[in-house]
């Protein structure tokens, strides 16, 4: 948790300090970092034989549970936002 919070807070503070400076484009940096991250995520999935072998065995049950879980998550978030008047 801390290893994620520290860079986020540090970046935010630095960004806040630099907010009136010349805007530099970090879009392409972000893109390549995302690509690196997604690659290493895929790599760790592919490296786990345990995960790959459990996929077909429990597939249908997993799809049903997942579908309902995300469906109700979206519905609940949408209604909760109406209740607390969050835009």
């Amino acid at each position: 948790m801390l290893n994620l919070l520290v860079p986020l807070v540090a970046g935010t503070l630095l960004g806040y300090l630099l907010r009136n400076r010349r805007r530099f484009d970090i879009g392409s940096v972000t893109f390549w970092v995302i690509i690196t991250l997604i690659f290493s995520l895929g790599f760790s999935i592919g490296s786990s034989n345990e995960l790959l072998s459990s996929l077909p065995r429990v597939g249908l049950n997993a799809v049903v549970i997942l579908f309902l879980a995300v469906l109700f998550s979206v519905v609940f978030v949408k209604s909760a936002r109406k209740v607390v008047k969050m835009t």
Partner: protein
Amino acid sequence: MIRYILITLAFGVVAGYLNNNFGNLVAGNFISDYLFNFSLMLLLFVMGLTFGMDKEALAKLRKTGLKILTVPFAVALGSILGGFIGGLILGVNVFASMAVSAGYGWYTLAGPLVGQLFGAEFGALGFTVNFLRELLTITTISLTVRIDKYAPIAFGGATTMDTTLPIIVRYCGSEMLITAFASGFTLSLIAPFTIATIATLR
């Protein structure tokens, strides 16, 4: 964007599989752990930078305040209810299916923890459901963002503090950074507790 992400993901899976099963050209944990963590930290730094420079985003967050915590709790309740109904439909132990969906996408936690509490078969289910949740969040984001600006965050569950965060920000805007991060952070925090609590209820 999403096209590059999917190609990279597929490429990574194949590379990881080949490396793990044929030869071990590079130490697997170099990429799975070091490269992963390094790029994640760098990414959070860069995204913090973007967020800090965005004046409207800060103003928006100030207005919303603690209300953003509504999102993770709605996701938690929705996920667990989905797990409950899913368990009823499939005729499996509803406590196990609720525990499975209370992983909120954090498969490295939900797999082992549910496995320990409910047995290996449900452990595999916990692994799969939560892994697919992450994958579904990434693959469907260009569609889900059209349902609702918050739908990708609801889909992502606990993963919105790290793996799916950059993609969410890309599609939902940088003002959603803190909402997504706070939601994923809160869900990651409560996931082990909700899974353990559900296990004691059975």
